């Protein structure tokens, strides 16, 4: 038995919660599940069918693979073209198409690409391959950033001259502010990403109820957790309230872990970042601090990166999917020219992408 997971999949509790949701449903309401891990859980457990009539869930910008820009993918691929390079990446990035190629295709062509489970595994690769330039693709939100920070500190402590990080890490509150501020997204409430919030703390999202008057629920990833999140949002909507409600109390403590905040501040510095679908969002990226410049691939290989040609336009409409303005099934490419085996873009590649989730679990 997987403790703290399986109890929250209990069929009886799930169905009772589902029935109860119908009792206080405010009528039609579109809610956004911000996090890609929620998108996958919702699809995998068939939770949309358990919501009251008219209550819909749309996916948000919380799939880190999906929001990585074409330019950043092209730039990382270009680094692989330097002799003696060993690229290290999380497995999710392997098949994401850049303008011309992907990490998987480059590996087949002879570029050395290794899939790692942890950024610390990339540090170990550098240690074991002193004749190679090991470059780690730092992708992910606040959940993942501490692991990269620990890797940067480990490399610095060992003075590992052949290790660097190509950081495209991004921070979630900044993206949500930009998304909601655009006025394009019409949602009545947000399920906030539970694991990102273990690091940021719930208070990082207080601006959403305060400035946008939208209810929020910090939500875990099992079926009971997600229905509890929906329940909190529907209750708030019915009561005309808007606050950040934490329904994932077993993991998310208030305030946030101060060590996590300190670690991130020690290694990273906010910088402007390009998000697929959202464009440039000020201070939403995480670059490496000056103190970590020797381990910053963007500084070390700036000349090479400057030569990367501009990204090519693509038929992929992931951008609209990530803004919650296009449902995967309404994309003319979906299940025609774009499938998991022949993906046009990251939302079909990442197993947490909205398109991949619909393809795998909800395809009619």
């Amino acid at each position, binding site marked *: 038995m997987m403790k703290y997971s399986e109890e929250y999949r209990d069929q009886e509790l799930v169905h009772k919660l589902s029935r109860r949701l119908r009792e206080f449903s405010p009528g039609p309401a579109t809610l956004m599940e911000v*996090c890609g891990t929620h998108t996958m859980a919702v699809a995998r457990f068939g939770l949309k069918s358990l919501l009251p009539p008219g209550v819909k869930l749309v996916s948000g910008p919380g799939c880190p693979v999906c929001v990585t820009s074409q330019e950043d993918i092209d730039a990382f691929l270009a680094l692989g073209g330097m002799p003696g390079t060993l690229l290290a990446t999380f497995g999710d990035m392997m098949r994401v198409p850049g303008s011309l190629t992907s990490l998987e295709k480059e590996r087949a062509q002879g570029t050395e690409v290794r899939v790692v489970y942890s950024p610390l595994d990339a540090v170990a690769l550098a240690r074991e391959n002193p004749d190679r330039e090991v470059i780690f693709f730092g992708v992910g939100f606040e959940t993942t950033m*501490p692991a990269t920070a620990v890797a940067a500190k480990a490399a610095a402590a060992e003075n590992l001259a052949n290790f660097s990080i190509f950081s495209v890490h991004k921070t979630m509150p900044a993206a949500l502010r930009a998304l909601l501020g655009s006025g394009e997204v019409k949602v009545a409430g947000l399920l906030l990403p539970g694991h990102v919030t*273990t690091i940021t703390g719930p208070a990082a999202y207080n601006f959403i109820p305060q400035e946008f008057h939208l209810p929020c629920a910090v939500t875990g*990833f099992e079926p009971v957790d997600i229905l509890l999140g929906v329940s909190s949002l529907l209750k708030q909507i019915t009561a005309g309230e808007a606050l950040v409600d934490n329904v994932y109390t077993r993991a998310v403590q208030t305030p946030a872990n101060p060590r996590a905040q300190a670690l991130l501040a020690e290694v990273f510095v906010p910088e402007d970042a390009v998000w697929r679908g959202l464009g440039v969002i000020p201070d939403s990226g995480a670059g490496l601090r000056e103190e970590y410049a020797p381990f910053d691939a963007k500084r070390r290989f700036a000349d090479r990166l400057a030569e990367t040609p501009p990204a090519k336009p693509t038929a992929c409409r992931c951008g609209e999917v990530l803004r919650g303005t296009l449902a995967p099934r309404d994309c003319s490419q979906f299940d025609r020219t774009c499938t998991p085996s022949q993906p046009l873009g990251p939302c079909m590649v990442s197993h947490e992408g909205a398109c991949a989730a619909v393809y795998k679990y909800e395809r009619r």
Partner: protein
Amino acid sequence: MCLAIPMRIVEIDGFLAVAEVDGVRREARLDLLPEAAVGDYILVHAGLAIATVDPEAAEETLTVLRQLSYDEVQ
């Protein structure tokens, strides 16, 4: 990508723990949670423990839900 699985700590050596779920063991760094102890459940993501599972909060959530369901039946 933000998947983090609750795992039980079975060994600790300095900042490095060995944690287990369903018979699978993995190393997890405790940089963020130096106070974690053997027997605690931690959420592990990309080789790092990012949070401790609070057993009281976990039980409370379930108790409230079971109670709520019971009242409905009354």
